C-alpha cells in the first residue's frame, strides 16, 4: 500500500488510519502505527511507520518521523522519512530533512539541511554519497593492512 501511495503522490482518507482535521489541536508525542493525515495543529512529536500526509492547512511544530510522506503544510522541526518524501509547492519546512528519496515542487520552501540516507537491514541509517575510484582504492588498502 505504501509503494502505491508514494507513487500516486498521497493517500486518500479511506486509506488513512488516523485523521487529524483542521479544527483539531494535538500536543505531545503523537505516535501511531498506520497511515496518517494531518490537517490540524500539532506540537511535540509525530511518529508513524506508515505514510504521513500533511495538508496545506496544517501547522506542525514538531519533529516528524515516518515511513513515507507528502508535505503540503508548514513544519517547524526536523523531518526524518525512511522512504520517499514529496514536498508540494505549498510546503514550508524550517528544519533539517533526512530522507531516502525526495521530490520537491517549485514553490516549496526548505530552510535547513537536507541529507539523503539509506536505511540498512539492521535499521542503521547511513548518508548516501558519491563513491569515487579513490574511495574504493582507499577501502581496499585498509583491508589489506588489516590482513
Amino acid at each position, binding site marked *: 500500500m505504501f509503494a502505491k501511495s508514494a507513487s500516486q503522490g498521497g493517500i*486518500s*482518507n*479511506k486509506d*488513512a*488510519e*488516523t*485523521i*487529524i*482535521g*483542521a*479544527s*483539531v*489541536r*494535538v*500536543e*505531545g*508525542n*503523537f*505516535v*501511531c502505527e498506520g497511515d496518517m493525515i494531518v*490537517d*490540524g495543529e500539532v506540537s*511535540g512529536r509525530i511518529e508513524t511507520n506508515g505514510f504521513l500526509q500533511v495538508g496545506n492547512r496544517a501547522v506542525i511544530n514538531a519533529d516528524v518521523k515516518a515511513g513515507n510522506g507528502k508535505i503540503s503544510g508548514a513544519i517547524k522541526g526536523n523531518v526524518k522519512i525512511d522512504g520517499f518524501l514529496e514536498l508540494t509547492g505549498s510546503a514550508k519546512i524550517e528544519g533539517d530533512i533526512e530522507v531516502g528519496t525526495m521530490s520537491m515542487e517549485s514553490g516549496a520552501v526548505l530552510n535547513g539541511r537536507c541529507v539523503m540516507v539509506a536505511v540498512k537491514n539492521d535499521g542503521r541509517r547511513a548518508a548516501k554519497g558519491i563513491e569515487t575510484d579513490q574511495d574504493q582504492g582507499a577501502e581496499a588498502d585498509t583491508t589489506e593492512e588489516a590482513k
Partner: protein
Amino acid sequence: MHIYIYDSALSQKKHFTQLNEVEAKLTDLGLSGRICRLGQLRSVSDVVRGELRRLPKTIVAVGDDNLISQIISLLGGSGVAMGIIPIGENNRIAESLGITSDNACNVLAARRLLQIDLGLVDSRAFVRRVELVGKKIKLLVDGNYLISSDGAKIEVVNFLLDTDESLTTERPKITSGNLYLMITREQKSGFLKKDLERSLIPFAELAVETDETEAVLDGLTKVRHPKRLAVLARGLVVIVGRERQF
C-alpha cells in the same frame, strides 16, 4: 440453560402474537428456558445480576436496542454468551449483528459465537458510541498526547453501522481491539452548503482532562464528569447471524 429477559414494553397487547410465535418456535428448537419479565418493580440490572449468580449458559435479551444496550453493559466481561431476539421498533444493534425478528430463533439455535469489543466509561460499559458534551474538552490519549477542538462534536465510537453517517474512512469495527475518537465539525463550503470535517483517531485509553463534562452512552445513559474511557477488548461473547455487518 437459556435465560430470556423480556422488555417491560412486551406486556403490551400488540406484541402478544409475535411473542407467542417466538415462544412456540423456541420450544420446537429445544431452546426453552427461564423467562424473566421486567417491570416497574424489577430493574434490568437486578435481574441480570441475579441470573449471573446461577451461571447460565446464555442470557437472551428480548426487546429493542434500549434493552439490548443495558444487558450488554451488564454482561461485559462476564464470559456468559448473549443472545438477542429483537422485538419492537428500534433494532439497529440486532440488525448489525445479523439478527432480525424473523431469523432470531434460528440464529440462537445455530449458536454462532463472536467475541466483540466493548467500551468503558469509568466502570460502565457501552456498545456503540459515547458523546462527550462540555466546553473546551481536553482529552489525553493513551497517556501520550492531548487533543482539543473548539466547537466540534466529540464522540468515542466502538463501531458504526452501515446506516450511520457516511464516513470517508474505513468504518470502525467491533472486533478491532480499539475505540475511535471521532471529532466532527461543520464547515461552510459555499452558499447554503456545508461540509463535514471529520477527525478519526484510534486509541485504547483516554482520560478526560476537563471537569465539566458529561458522557451520553449509546444515546441512553448519562454519566457526569467521566474520567476514563477505555476499550474492553473482546469483552462480550454474543450470538450472531450470518448476515452480520462485520
